[in-house]
């Protein structure tokens, strides 16, 4: 395995692993806080139980998120010293801000998890809310750094030297807004639907279970609206990409030749040698409409960049299709659930809806992974779009396949363990009070 490939793979594995826990760390505190607040308002112990059980699972996920995030911070230097030498002074700012967000997050998480009964209830709730806010902020800051890699601003390169550094301009790079909105929504949508899906699975067995009914409601409140907004925000992102990274857009849409009135290709297999996409379904004018909101607009194809600057078209196109497909599914389910709730129908007794929600459990997370593959693979061969090639950023250290394999094994092992522990906690926890079969209509909870 060439060293560059090993480094890229190690970075990809580390990020793909971390993002799962980061997403949970952003969204789970919101649900815990909502449950705890309901407990304080209604006085019903079922909500307290819910908040505590969610907190227990979150504690495990959070710790793994923190340590895998630490790995990432080091890996920026261990794998990409060339990148950091170039970019550190320019985009260090969001990372420093992120550092403070981590601090507040870790501090108040400690207070939240261990503070039950030690601090006043209101203070406990505020601690939870602070965890939620700082979690979202840390995600936002790190995504701003990533957005800068896609749309670098705030510096000039003169004779190979970086001059006129302006970290604030880098912070305000043109990709920052679309990416941070899309990522933050993704965190809530993915986690909301994952949690809703697990509880829907139990409700399929027993729709009267009061515990799972409450959990489902809270999870859908977080997941459904964000899943509905996600396609809109994705469109915003796509239009941005069309302007700033035409090669990435062309790869996403498997568009080889520049043309006006470009059609949208659904599915299909891009053949990079023959420069055509086979078996796809084409929607006339679709791409021009989506990318520029104008059916006649010219969309740049891959022919605009030289062949050695193409990303892996098949991987990017496929990932994009997966994300959009799953996003469409989640949005439809959200719409359906919202419609039923508006009609005051009992969601938990609607077996088809529960099946659809249970099916959605992993989908948000798969969409998140696929979306990041689009962003990161689509940027290749650049680590900083148009400025620095990935090959020039990698460490000179040889034998990188060894750390790649070691970290991959470590993460596989951790992933399996976490899944096992959560399973044990969710499904078999003997300490759980038996809410099972205990039916309580909504009015009584007031």
């Amino acid at each position, binding site marked *: 395995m060439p060293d560059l490939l090993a480094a890229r793979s190690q970075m990809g594995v580390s990020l793909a692993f971390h993002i799962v826990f980061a997403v949970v760390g952003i969204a789970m505190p919101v649900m815990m806080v909502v449950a705890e607040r309901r407990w304080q308002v209604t006085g019903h112990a079922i909500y307290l139980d819910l908040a505590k059980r969610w907190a227990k699972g979150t504690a*495990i996920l959070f710790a793994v998120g923190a340590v895998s995030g*630490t790995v990432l911070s080091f890996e920026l230097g*261990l794998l990409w010293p060339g990148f950091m030498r170039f970019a550190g002074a320019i985009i260090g*700012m969001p990372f420093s*801000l992120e550092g403070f967000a981590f601090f507040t997050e870790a501090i108040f998480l400690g207070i939240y998890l261990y503070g039950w009964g030690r601090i006043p209830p209101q203070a406990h709730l505020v601690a939870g809310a602070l965890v939620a806010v700082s979690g979202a902020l840390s995600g936002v800051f790190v995504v701003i750094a990533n957005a800068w890699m896609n749309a670098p601003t705030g510096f000039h390169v003169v004779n190979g030297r970086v001059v006129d550094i302006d*970290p604030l301009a880098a912070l305000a790079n043109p990709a920052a807004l679309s990416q941070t909105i899309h990522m933050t929504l993704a965190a809530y949508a993915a986690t909301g639907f994952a949690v809703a899906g697990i509880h829907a699975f139990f409700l399929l067995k027993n729709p009267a279970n009061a515990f799972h009914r409450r959990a489902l409601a809270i999870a859908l409140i977080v997941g459904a609206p964000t899943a509905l907004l996600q396609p809109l925000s994705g469109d915003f992102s796509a239009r941005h990409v069309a302007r700033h990274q035409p090669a990435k857009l062309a790869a996403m849409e498997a568009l080889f030749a520049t043309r006006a009135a470009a059609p949208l290709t659904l599915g299909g297999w891009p053949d990079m040698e023959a420069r055509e996409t086979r078996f796809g379904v084409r929607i006339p004018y679709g791409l021009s409409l989506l990318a520029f909101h104008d059916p006649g607009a010219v969309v740049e194809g891959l022919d605009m960049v030289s062949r050695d600057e193409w990303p892996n078209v098949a991987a990017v196109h496929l990932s994009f299709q997966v994300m959009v497909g799953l996003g469409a599914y989640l949005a439809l389910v959200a719409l359906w659930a919202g419609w039923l709730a508006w009609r005051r129908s009992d969601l938990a007794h609607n077996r088809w809806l529960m099946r659809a929600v249970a099916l959605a459990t992993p989908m948000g997370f798969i969409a998140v992974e696929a979306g990041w593959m689009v962003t990161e693979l689509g940027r290749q061969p650049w680590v900083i779009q148009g400025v620095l090639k990935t090959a020039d950023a990698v460490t000179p250290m040889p034998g990188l396949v060894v750390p790649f394999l070691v970290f991959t094994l470590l993460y596989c092992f*951790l992933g399996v363990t976490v899944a096992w522990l959560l399973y044990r906690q969710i499904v078999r926890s003997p300490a759980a009070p038996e809410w099972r079969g205990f039916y309580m209509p909504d009015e009584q909870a007031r």
Partner: protein
Amino acid sequence: MTLADVIAGIVFAALNAYALLGGADYGGGVWDLLAGGPRKERQRERIAEAIGPVWEANHVWLILALVLLFTCFPPAFARLGILLHIPLSLVLIGIVLRGSAFTFWRYGGQADDEQRHWGVVFAVASLVTPLLLGTAAGAIASGALGEEGKGSGGGFSARYVAPWLTPFALSVGVFAVVAFAFLAAVYLTLEAEEPELREDFRRRGLGAGAALFGAALLVLLLSRGGAPRVREGLIFAPWAAPLHVCTAAAALTALAALWRRRYRVARMAAALQVSLILWGWGLSQYPYLLPPDLTIAAAAAPAVTLRLVLGTLALGGVVLLPSLYYLFRVFKSIEPRA
């Protein structure tokens, strides 16, 4: 003193905080590994309870130092990443295993044998990780990371292994482990509820304090060949003598207070002692960030970046310090536990 010096000082202060807080969490793991006697399980319980609420926050000091380093001194960060790739990768494995094992152990549900395996992983990783971190620090102090990132030249092992696999660097690693264990034992005397448990930790603190003298002596002896520059500074600089006097005073106070069961004094003195040792190292290699050739000024990012980071730090501090104060007020009693 330039702006870059100030920020280098802040990075070092963050490392200092990491040593005092995160370091003690490692030390707790070491005492978990060495738990023994009739109250073995109680010791382990108490250690885990002390670490639980704070370890994630304590850990962020390392992240903060790292982030500040790569923002404000990018060439130094890049060079460290290249030349210390191996020990730092091992540190990361240690950090990952330690943090997750601790959580799996404490949050995994049933307290059965399977769970105790995680306790063992946590304890072993708590021993190995600071050893390697200390070794990396030793490699920096020894001036082996020079020549524009070329190490000592030559082949793979000359470049990527030799700089840190030296007796001196390893002795710094040992020193770090002993210092962290010492801090942990001293802090734990204030955490223990039962008098017998407190005595357990007091004895361990006294033992570790004595061992720390030995470890310091070892580092000093090896520094002759291993880290001449730091050694020079520590002996001949104008600030050297007062620093040594203060450090020695702190060390003796810590041990005496521990002996006389004045635990709060002991905690202050032990923390001061470890901090002074760290600053001694920092001062002795000033103005170099990575001796023998990369100075703070040469590695510093442009002034705009530094100014903005300083502003960020001020702003962040306003949020951070009260929060930290609250965390420790809730979970760490000022008085010994009744």
